[in-house]
C-alpha cells in the first residue's frame, strides 16, 4: 500500500492523476486531459483525449477545435453526476461548479480516497448553468481568484438595476458593457432578460458564436443583433456587449457616444475601474467571493485544502487562522481571467 494521496500530484503544468496518467486542466498538450471548463487558463487544444461535460466539449470544439477532425483528439463526454472509470482504478465524477456553461468540479476517487478539483466556481445563482454542489472529500483543490477579504460581490439584481437606470437616463447614448466572451456576457444578457429588459442587445462580432452556442444548449438570450450590421443611430438607448479588450479600442468609435461599463469582480476596487476608464463599474463575478470561498471550505470540511490560483496568500492565512491544513500550488499559466 502506497502512502496516502501519493496517486495525485501537483506539477507546474497541472494536477497529475498518476495511475490514470491523466491531467486536470493541464497547461500543455497531454495524452489524457480532464477539463473542468472552457476558459483558456483551464482548457486548451492538442490533447490526445479530452474528458469533460458535453457543454465544455462543445465550447472547446468552438475555441480549440477539440474533437474536430483527426487532429482534434478523442473526446469523452460526461454528464453532471455521472462517474466514469479511468485506467488505474480511478473514478472521476463531474459535479456542477456554477461557474459558466458546462463548468464542473471533478471528484477523483482512488483507493478509498476522495479528491475534488473545483476548477473555477461560484455559489451564486446563475441562469446559464446549474448551481455548485457541496460534496465531501479529503483533499479540496480550490481556486482563489477573489481570495481577499475585501471581495464580497453584491447581489446581481442591484448591479442590473444600476445598468438599466443609467440606460434610461441617457436615451441618446448607448451603454457599452465589457464582459468576458465566455460566460460573463451570456450571464449578463440572461440576467437583463430576467430583470425585464426585452429590447434587442447588440453584440461585438467576437461574442456571436458563443452566444449561439449557449442558445443551442437551452439558455435563452432573447433578441441579439450585431453591431457590425447596425447603423450607429439605431443603437442609441440600447445595450452593447463587447469583450473587455474592445472597450477603449477604436472599434468603439462606431457606437453612439457610449457610456463605458465593465462587468467584473475587479470593479469593486475603484482604482481598478478608473485605470480602465470605466464610467459604470458593475461588480459581477463568476468566481466565489471571499465569504463563498471560506464558507465552501467549511462546508466541504476537507482534511486538506490545496489552492490553485488567484490570491492564495490570504486564503492560506485564513486556513492557518482556522487551524485548517492548506497549501498553495505553484501552477504556471494561470492568470487572472479578464473576469
Amino acid at each position, binding site marked *: 500500500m502506497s502512502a496516502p494521496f501519493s496517486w495525485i500530484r501537483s506539477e507546474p503544468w497541472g494536477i497529475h492523476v498518476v495511475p490514470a496518467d491523466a491531467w486536470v486542466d493541464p497547461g500543455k498538450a497531454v495524452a489524457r486531459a480532464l477539463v473542468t471548463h472552457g476558459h483558456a487558463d483551464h482548457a486548451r487544444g492538442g490533447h490526445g483525449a479530452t474528458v469533460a461535460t458535453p457543454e465544455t466539449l462543445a465550447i472547446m470544439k468552438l475555441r480549440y477545435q477539440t474533437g474536430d477532425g483527426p487532429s482534434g483528439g478523442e473526446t469523452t463526454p460526461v454528464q453532471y453526476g455521472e462517474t466514469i472509470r479511468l485506467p488505474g482504478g480511478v473514478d472521476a465524477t463531474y459535479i456542477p461548479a456554477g461557474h459558466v456553461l458546462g463548468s464542473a468540479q471533478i471528484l477523483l476517487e482512488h483507493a478509498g480516497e476522495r479528491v475534488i478539483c473545483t476548477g473555477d466556481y461560484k455559489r451564486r445563482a446563475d441562469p446559464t448553468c446549474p448551481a455548485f454542489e457541496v460534496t465531501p472529500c479529503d483533499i479540496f483543490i480550490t481556486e482563489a481568484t477573489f481570495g481577499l*477579504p475585501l471581495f*464580497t460581490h453584491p447581489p446581481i439584481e442591484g448591479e442590473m438595476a444600476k445598468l438599466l437606470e443609467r440606460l434610461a437616463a441617457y436615451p441618446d447614448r448607448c451603454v457599452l458593457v465589457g464582459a468576458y466572451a465566455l460566460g460573463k456576457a451570456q450571464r449578463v444578457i440572461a440576467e437583463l432578460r430576467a430583470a425585464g429588459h426585452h429590447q434587442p442587445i447588440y453584440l461585438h462580432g467576437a461574442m456571436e458564436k458563443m452566444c449561439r452556442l449557449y442558445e443551442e444548449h437551452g439558455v435563452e438570450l432573447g433578441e441579439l443583433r450585431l453591431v457590425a450590421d447596425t447603423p450607429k443611430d439605431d443603437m442609441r438607448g440600447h445595450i452593447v456587449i463587447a469583450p473587455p479588450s474592445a472597450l*477603449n479600442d*477604436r472599434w468603439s*468609435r462606431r457606437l453612439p457616444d457610449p457610456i463605458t461599463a465593465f462587468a467584473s469582480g475587479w470593479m469593486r*476596487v475603484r482604482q481598478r475601474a478608473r485605470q480602465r*476608464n470605466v*464610467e459604470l463599474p458593475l461588480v459581477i463575478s463568476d468566481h466565489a467571493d471571499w465569504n463563498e470561498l471560506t464558507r465552501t471550505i467549511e462546508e466541504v470540511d476537507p482534511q486538506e485544502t490545496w489552492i490553485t490560483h488567484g*490570491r492564495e496568500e490570504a486564503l492560506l492565512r485564513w486556513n492557518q487562522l482556522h487551524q485548517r491544513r492548506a497549501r498553495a500550488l505553484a501552477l504556471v499559466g494561470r492568470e487572472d481571467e479578464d473576469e
Partner: protein
Amino acid sequence: MEQFAALLDALVFTRSRNEKLRLIAEYLRATPDPDRGWALAALTDGLDFPAVKSSTIRNIMKERIDPVLWSLSRDFVGDTAETASLLWETAQMGENGDSAPPPSVSETVAALEAMNRKSVVTELPALLDRLDPSGRYALLKLATGAMRIGVSSRLGKVAFAQAFDVSVDEVEEYWHALTPPFAELFAWAADGDAPPDIANMPTFRPFMLAHPLEETVVDMADYAAEWKWDGIRVQLVHVANDSGGETRVYSRSGDDISATFPEMLDALTIPAVLDGELLVRGNVQGGEAGPDKQGGAASFNALQQRLGRKTVSKKMLAESPAFVRLYDAMVIEGEDVRALEWQDRRRRLEEFLPRLPASHFDISAIVEAESFEALAEIREGTRDDAIEGLMLKRRDSPYIAGRKTGLWYKWKRDPLLIDCVLMYAQRGSGKRSSFFSDYTFGCWNGDPDMGAELLPVGKAYSGFTDEELKKLDKHVRSKTVNRFGPVRETDKSLVFEVAFDSVHESKRHKSGLAMRFPRIHRIRWDKPVHEADRIESLRSLIRD
C-alpha cells in the same frame, strides 16, 4: 451622507468635465444647508480633522481584522481609506453593527471635529457602522482630507456658480474670505441675500487676463507695452486688522501659496492688492540685466525648484530668493483702484513703489515704441530667457476680471522649431482614449548615416487637428514594433516639426535636454528621418 457618497462615486467614474460640473451643481441645488457647504469644502480645499489620519484608520482596522489579511488587502487596493471601507463588514466578523440611521454630512463633520486621538478609536467605528460601503468610503475620504477624485478647487467653484447662476469671478472673490460651510455664500447665491462683506479680509480677487495677439495689429497711441516675464503670475494681498495685518500670496488660480514664499509676507505691510510676476533672483541662467536694465531674474527652471513646497529651507531662501515684478494694482493703500484707467493705475503704482522694499519689488518696465513695427523689432531682438514676450494694455482699460476682448493682449516670442522623429506613442485620456495621441520624439545623437541613435527629447500631445490625429493614430497602429504596457514603440519613420518656447539642461532626460511647452508644429510626412535634427542643434538653442 448617502447623497454625498453617491456624488463622490459618480465623480470618481466621470471623465467629462461638463458632466462633473453638472453632477456637483445638481447636488448643491438639491442639498440643504449646511450639508452642501461642508460637501463643497470637502470637494474643493478639503477639510482637516487632526484626530483622523491614515494611520488612525490602519490601527482601527488592525484591531478588527488579522493584520496579515489587512496588509494583503491594503497592498492590493493601494488606498487605506478605500481598503477600510471595503473590509469593514468582513472585519466585524459577524458582530451586529449599530442600526442607527446614516449620519448627515454636517453630523459627520461635527462628530469628526469633536474626536481626539483617544476617542477616535471608538467614535469613528461607530460612524462607520451606520454606513454602507460607499458611505464609508465617503466618510473616510472626508475625514482624511484627501479626495483624489479629479475635482480641482476651481472646478468646484465653477460648479457652484453654475448651480445658482452667479458669476464665478464673484465666487472667487468671496471664497477666500469665507470658511466652511460657507453659509453667507449660499445665502447670497441661492437665496438672493446681500453679498458677503469682504472689505477687511485678505482675500483673492480674480485676475485680469489677456488674449493672444495673433494676427491683430494695435495702434501704439492706444496701447502701452510691457515685458511679460517667465515666472508665475501672483497676487499679493495685505489688509490691516486687529492683529496688526495679514499678507497672502495667491497663484493665478487663487490658491494660497503664502507658505511657499514666506519672504514676500514681510515685504508687504501696507494695505494693497498687487498684481505681478513672481521670479527668483539668479545670475547664472537669467543674465544680470535684461532690456531696459531690468534683470536679475533667473530662468523659469530656477523658479521651478521652489514651486509646490509647503516649507522652505533657509538655504533655498538664501540661494533663490523670490521677488515680485509688478504689473498692476487692484487696491493701493486700501483704495480699490480697479475702476480707474490703466494709465492712472500705472501712475498710482509707480508712486506707490518707493514705499515697498526694493529687495522684494520692482515694476515691469514700459517698452517704449513709436509704432507697432518698432515694437515688433524690439521683441525680435530680446534674448533674455526670463522674458516670455510682451503685454499690450489699452491705456484706458479698467481692471476687469477675466479675459475681455480688446483690452489686454499677450504677444509671446516666436517659438523655436526643430525637426524630431516620432519614437513612442501612448493613448490619450477622455475623448482621446481610443487614439494614440501622446507622442514622444527624439533627435539623433550623431550622424544617422554613421549609425547614430535617436534619443528622446520631449513629449507632445497637441498642435494637430482631429483629421491629423486620425492619421497619426493609424500611423502608430500600423508601425508598432514593440509594446511596453500602454506604450507603443514605432518604427521611427515619421518626422515632426516641433515648436517649443525654450530648452534647457536636464538630468532627467537621457539626452540631457528638456523643452518647455513643446507642441507639434507640422507633421512632415514628406521628410526622410535621417534629415531630422541632431541633439547638438537642439543644444545650441539654449539661451543663456
